[in-house]
């Protein structure tokens, strides 16, 4: 078994707030192997953004606090505390594509300037640093993301570009450092559906062509279904189900996953989509056992006191639910 590219093991994170300490991440584990497209899915507030920030090393501490677990990239631990708001200790090999393109680009600088700086500060020592080389790299990257008229765009300010083009610029910036892993935060959510589709297709293509792995953080099941090979379903700070995309969508096991899929309105088949009753638990005093217990229709007596670990139900398909214990 080859070493996974990215491995998160049992990550625990707390957040200190005015009301008290929020136990946000309750032991999150996931892996991304070389060439894999992995999706991390969960509703707003489940902790997926915090997971991503911990991986990237941009979790603000305080108020955040990493209380346990490991994050390994290519076998090396990259988990670290960042105290200074401005210090960015980047991990070579991982690139981040932010959620909202408009706020991801600095509004008062030209596009070209921003991309150039990314290149300048990320080149390996062996690479040349002259202007011509940088310009070529930028043009290359822009062509890869299918931006029309790269010269002009380089001279433009972000406000002059449409949302879709801004997103492509951000993807280009991510690629320009030749990463091995892309982390995409809610790709396309800030855009119109048709543009979002284009961006997702672009990402699919790029992942193949550039030979990168990608970790997609999203609340949108559709995005996951399009892009990902493997899916982790997250709820209230825990991974509740993980497996191949096809397996998960055809045969969801965890009550939460089932509820999620049932909530998707279907064009065919009629009927109103059902939601899941209840709300996510308070992180201030989370339930001791399974965090989904208060909302679960299949709850059993043991679920309240003990937190279920991941049980394997079929090959590469694991569920954190006592219903499947011992299968």
């Amino acid at each position: 078994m080859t070493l996974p590219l990215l491995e998160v093991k049992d990550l625990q994170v707390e957040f200190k707030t005015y009301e008290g300490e929020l136990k946000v991440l309750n032991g999150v584990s996931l892996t991304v192997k070389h060439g894999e497209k992995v999706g991390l899915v969960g509703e707003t507030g489940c902790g997926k953004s915090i997971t991503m920030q911990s991986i990237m090393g941009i979790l603000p501490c305080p108020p955040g606090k990493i209380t346990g677990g490991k994050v390994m990239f290519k076998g090396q631990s990259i988990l670290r505390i960042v105290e200074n708001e401005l210090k960015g200790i980047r991990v070579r090999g991982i690139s981040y594509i932010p959620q909202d393109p408009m706020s991801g680009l600095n509004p008062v600088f030209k596009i070209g300037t921003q991309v150039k700086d990314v290149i300048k500060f990320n080149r390996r020592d062996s690479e040349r640093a002259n202007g011509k080389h940088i310009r070529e790299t930028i043009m290359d990257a822009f062509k890869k993301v299918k931006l029309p008229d790269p010269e002009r765009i380089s001279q433009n300010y972000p406000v002059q570009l449409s949302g879709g083009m801004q997103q492509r610029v951000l993807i280009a910036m991510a690629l320009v450092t030749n990463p091995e892993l892309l982390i995409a935060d809610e790709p396309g959510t800030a855009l119109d559906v048709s543009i979002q589709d284009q961006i997702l297709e672009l990402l699919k293509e790029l992942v193949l062509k550039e030979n990168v792995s990608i970790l997609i953080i999203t609340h949108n099941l559709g995005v996951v279904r399009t892009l990902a090979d493997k899916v982790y379903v997250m709820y209230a700070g825990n991974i509740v189900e993980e497996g191949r995309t096809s397996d998960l969508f055809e045969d969801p096991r965890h009550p939460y996953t089932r509820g999620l899929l049932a909530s998707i309105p279907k064009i065919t088949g009629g009927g109103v989509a059902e939601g899941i009753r209840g709300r996510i638990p308070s992180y201030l005093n989370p339930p001791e056992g399974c965090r989904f217990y208060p909302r679960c229709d299949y709850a059993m007596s043991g679920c309240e006191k003990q937190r279920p670990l991941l049980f394997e139900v079929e090959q590469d398909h694991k569920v954190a639910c006592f219903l499947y214990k011992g299968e």
Partner: protein
Amino acid sequence: MEFLSYLVRRSISMIATLIGISVLIFLLIRVMPGDPARLALGTQATQDMVEDLRQRMHLNEPLHKQYYYWAKGLLQGDLGRSLYSYRNVTQDLKEFFPATIELILFAILILVTVGLLFGILAASYKDTWIDGSIRFIAYAGVSIPYFLWAIFLLLIFGYFLDIMPTGGRLSAGVKMPPPLTGMVTIDALVSGNLLTLLDALKHLILPAISLSTGGIATAARVTRTSMSDNVKKDYIQVAKSFNIPRNVIMYKYLLKPSLIPTVALLGMQLGVLVANAFLVELIFNWPGFSRYGIGTMLNKDLNGITAVVLIVGGIYVIMNFVVDLIVAYLDPRIRLREA
């Protein structure tokens, strides 16, 4: 190119505002109770003399006609005669104006450099003692009214410590440099008269600082807040994730967007400076335009008052205009969006 169109738009709006101010001032003066001619001549004058003056001042004609005469005179540079000293108002102004401009320019200089510096320091060392003390100083600057600063500074440095002069522009016996711009410091610099320059600076420092205290405090506070707000923005996170070094993030990517609110606020600050110069000049015995203005007000010299208010309003509007241009230069969103 888009900048040019923005420039044109703002210029038109500025001219409109200037016209508006002139109307306002005119109406204000005419609408206030009291007969201007009577006020000018005093209670001793006969009714005939008053009538005579009223004719000459066009006071018996309909309001809009009066405005017309007045505006015409204005555009020709004629601000009328001071009803008190009988000198040409324009002449009086020319004499006193440069001193005030000098004071204000210095105050702006101090304000911008010190204010920005404090703000950046406070943001860099956020939540440390440096930040805390700067915030305290800023608070003191804003809460302690400028004329109190003037009095305290005068008291401490001028009297108790006796290291600064207590008034005027130049010490007795120091010769004025050849009048080029009317601003003693620049004239002295240009004519190579370093001793005069030094003396002039010594006289200039305390009043300039008093004027600038409020502005320093505001500039520091706004810069600090703006920087610490922007640090949380996505584009900074992205820059961090791409390992852009702290210095570059701080002084390039964070600074420029954060300066925008500070500069925008500067416009209002400048208006306040011009107004505050009134009292500061009084306290420091600075022979400037504001002191002249107060003189006109105390003497109920209507033409003088009109001229002063007009000038102050005009400066304010023009300065705001300049500030708007600077902001548009710094923030492409503004000039590009309006296009």
